[in-house]
C-alpha cells in the first residue's frame, strides 16, 4: 500500500490509463463540464452495511469491556473518579490502574481511565481531562506527561470544582494540583547511592550514569539523590539541574528504554572500559546496560543499581544482574488517590501538599548498616 501512496501521480491498479492520454483528456474535460448522475448500485448498500455492522459490533464489544458500569448513565449518587496515565502500555501504569480499579470496586466508585498515546502526549491528556469533566468526574488522578503543558487544562478542571491529584510525577509548579501522591524520587536515588557506597567500601570507582532525558524532574531527582547518597556530590533534593561529580566518567540519556540503555552502556564502555559502577534510571535501562556489560565480559566487575521495583527488575536482582533497586508503589498511589476523591465527594475534604507513598531498597546482598528488604519482599510487592 505504501509504495502505491508514494508514487507521484499513481493511477492505481488499472495501469492502462496513462497509456491512453487522449481518452483520459476527454474524461477530464467531462469532469469539468458535465455532471452525470448514476443510480445507487447495490454494492453501495452492501458496503454501507459492511461499515455499519462491525462498527455496531465493536461498540457493543467495547461497552461490554467497560467492566461493571452497565448502568453508566443511571447512577447518580455514585462518585466518578478519573485516572489519566502517561501511556496504556507501561507496566507501571498498568499496576497503577489495577490499584485504582481495586479501590474503586471496593468503595463503590465509578472509575474512568484514559491515557496518552505516547509518553509526552500532552494533547491526549488534555482531551481526557475535558472528557472526564464532561462525564461528571468529582476528582481526577493524573500522571502528567508534560509537567508544565498540562497546567492550563488542570486549572480549567479545578475551576469547575474537580479535585485534581498528581500521581507519581509532580506538575511544575507542584501547586497547580490539589495534592501530589508520589515516590520521593530523590530518596529513591539516595538509597541506592548509599548502598553502592557501602558495597564498594571506599575503593576507587568509575561511575556511569544512564539517565532519563533532559529536563525531566524524575530523572534529575534520582540522579542527584544517587550522587548525594554515594557522597560523590553535595546536592540537595530541591536542585533542578543534574549535578556532576569527578568520579562520573560517563553520562547518557536512555529515555528509560532497554535498547537505548544498552546502546548508552556500549558507548560508555567505549569511552572508559574501567567503569565499575552503573546507576540506571530504571530497570529496563539497567537490563540493557547488563547486556552490554555481559557482552564485554565484565559482568563480574561491574555493579548495577537501579530504581523502580517492577517484577522483571526484581527478578533481575534475584538473578544477580542488578545489585539493588529502589522499589516504588504505583498501586498505593492510585488506591490512596481514589480514597481521597471519595472523601472529597462525600464531605468535601481535600488532601493537600505532598504525600509520600514510600520507597524500599531491595537486594539479596545486604550491606551492614543500610536498611533493605530481600528479593522475596520485592516480588510480593512488585508491579508489572
Amino acid at each position, binding site marked *: 500500500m505504501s509504495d502505491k501512496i*508514494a508514487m507521484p501521480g499513481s493511477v492505481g491498479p488499472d495501469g492502462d490509463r496513462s497509456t491512453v492520454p487522449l481518452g483520459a483528456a*476527454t474524461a477530464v474535460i467531462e469532469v469539468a463540464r458535465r455532471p452525470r448522475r448514476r443510480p445507487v448500485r447495490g454494492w453501495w448498500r452492501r458496503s454501507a452495511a459492511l461499515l455499519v455492522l462491525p*462498527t455496531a459490533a465493536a*461498540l457493543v464489544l467495547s461497552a461490554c469491556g467497560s467492566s461493571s458500569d452497565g448502568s453508566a448513565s443511571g447512577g447518580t449518587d455514585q462518585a466518578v473518579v478519573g485516572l489519566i496515565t502517561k501511556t496504556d502500555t507501561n507496566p507501571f501504569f498498568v499496576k497503577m490502574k489495577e490499584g485504582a480499579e481495586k479501590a474503586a470496586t471496593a468503595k463503590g466508585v465509578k472509575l474512568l481511565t484514559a491515557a496518552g498515546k505516547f509518553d509526552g502526549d500532552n494533547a491526549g491528556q488534555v482531551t481526557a481531562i475535558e472528557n472526564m469533566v464532561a462525564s461528571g468526574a468529582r476528582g481526577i488522578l493524573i500522571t502528567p506527561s*508534560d509537567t*508544565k503543558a498540562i497546567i492550563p487544562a488542570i486549572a480549567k478542571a479545578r475551576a469547575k470544582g474537580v479535585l485534581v491529584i498528581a500521581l507519581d510525577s509532580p506538575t511544575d509548579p507542584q501547586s497547580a494540583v490539589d495534592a501530589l501522591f508520589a515516590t520521593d524520587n530523590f530518596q529513591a536515588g539516595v538509597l541506592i547511592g548509599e548502598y553502592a557506597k557501602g558495597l564498594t567500601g571506599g575503593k576507587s570507582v568509575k561511575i556511569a550514569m544512564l539517565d532519563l532525558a533532559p529536563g525531566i524532574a524524575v530523572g534529575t531527582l534520582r540522579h542527584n539523590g544517587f550522587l548525594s547518597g554515594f557522597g560523590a556530590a553535595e546536592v540537595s533534593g530541591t536542585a533542578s539541574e543534574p549535578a556532576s561529580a569527578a568520579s562520573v566518567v560517563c553520562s547518557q540519556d536512555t529515555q528509560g528504554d532497554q535498547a537505548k540503555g544498552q546502546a548508552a552502556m556500549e558507548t560508555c564502555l567505549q569511552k572508559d572500559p574501567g567503569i565499575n559502577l552503573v546507576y540506571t534510571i530504571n530497570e529496563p535501562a539497567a537490563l540493557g546496560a547488563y547486556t552490554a556489560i555481559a557482552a564485554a565480559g565484565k559482568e563480574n566487575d561491574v555493579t548495577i543499581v537501579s530504581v523502580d521495583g517492577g517484577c522483571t527488575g526484581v527478578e533481575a536482582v534475584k538473578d544477580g544482574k542488578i545489585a539493588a533497586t529502589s522499589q516504588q508503589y504505583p498501586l498505593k498511589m492510585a488506591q490512596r488517590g481514589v480514597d481521597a476523591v471519595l472523601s472529597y465527594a462525600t464531605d468535601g475534604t481535600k488532601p493537600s501538599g505532598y504525600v509520600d507513598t514510600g520507597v524500599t531498597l531491595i537486594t539479596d546482598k545486604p550491606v551492614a548498616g543500610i536498611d533493605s528488604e530481600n528479593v522475596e519482599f520485592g516480588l510480593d510487592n512488585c508491579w508489572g
Partner: protein
Amino acid sequence: MASTKAAGAEIKLRNSVGSFAKNAPDLATLGPVIALVLAGLFFSIKSDRFLTGGNFSLILQQVMVVGTLAIGQTLIILTAGIDLSNGAIMALGNILITKLAVDAGLNPFLAIGLGLLACTAFGLLNGGLVTTIRLPPFIVTLGTLNIAFALTHIYSNEETISDLPAALTYLGKTFNVGQTEITYGSLLMIALFGIAWCILTQTSAGRHIYAVGDNPEGARLTGIRTRRVVLTVYAVAGFIYGIASLLLVSRTGVGDPNAGQTDNLDSITAVVLGGTSLFGGRGSVAGTLLGALIVGVIRNGLQLIGTKSIYQVLITGILVILAVAIDQLARRRKA
C-alpha cells in the same frame, strides 16, 4: 486495432472518472454519515451526558486541530500524494509562535505571521521536492517530518513555553449560544472546511486538483499545469498547518515541543474515514470533517460511558480498514 483499443479504454475511463468525480462525494459520504449517526445514537442511549450542546461543542473543540490538519491532508491526497510531515510542521509552527512571542518578546501578531510563514515554507519545500525532483511524496514528507521534528526540539531546547500573551490563545476563548459555550477555534475550523469545500467543488482550481490526482498525464494534456497545481496544493496545505498550530496553541495554552507526534496518521485516518481515496482524484473535504468527527465522537462517547480508551483505537482501526476496503471495492467495480 490500436484505435479500437484506445476507444474502448476511453469509454471505460469516461465512465470511471465521470461517475467518481461527480457521484463519489455524495455516495462516499453515505458510509461515514451512517457510522456517525449510529455512534451518536449508541452513546445517547448509553449516557445522558452525551446528547448536550456543551458536549458537542467539546467534541468540535477536541477535533479542531486534527480536523484542520486533515484539510491540508485531503488536498494533498486528492493529488494522489500523502503528507507524513503535517504534525511535525504544526509542532514547529506552535513552538515558533510561542517562543518568538514569549522569549524573544515579539509582537504576538508578528510571531503568528512568522509561524504561518515557516509552515507555508515547509509546504513549499514538500511541494518543490515532489514536483521538481519528482521524489515520491511519502519519502519527501518522511524526510521533512524528521527535519521539522528536529528543528522543533533544537529551537525549543526541549522546553515547554508557558505564560503566553492573550492574543495567542484568543481562538481558545468561548462565546455563548444559549447555555452552550463554543470556542472561536471550532468556528474557524468549520469556516476553513467551508472554504476548502467551495474551492474544490465550485472553482476550476478545485477541478484541476481532482484531475491531476485522477490522471496527471491526461490533466497535463488538457492544458492543466499539473506541477503548479501540485506545488500550490502543498504550499496551501502548509499554510493550513500553520493555522492548525495556532489552534493548538490556543487549545493547550502552551508551546509544546512534543505536540503532534501522531497527528499525521490521525489526519490520514480522518481523510480515509471520510471516503477520500488514497489513489487520488476522488473524495471530499466534507467527508474528512465527518471522518474527524467520527474519531472525536467515539473517543468522547467511550469516555463518557466509562470504557477503556484502548477501545477507541480498536474501533478506529476497524473503521479505517473498512473505509479503504470500500474504496478498493469501488475502484474494482468501476474500473
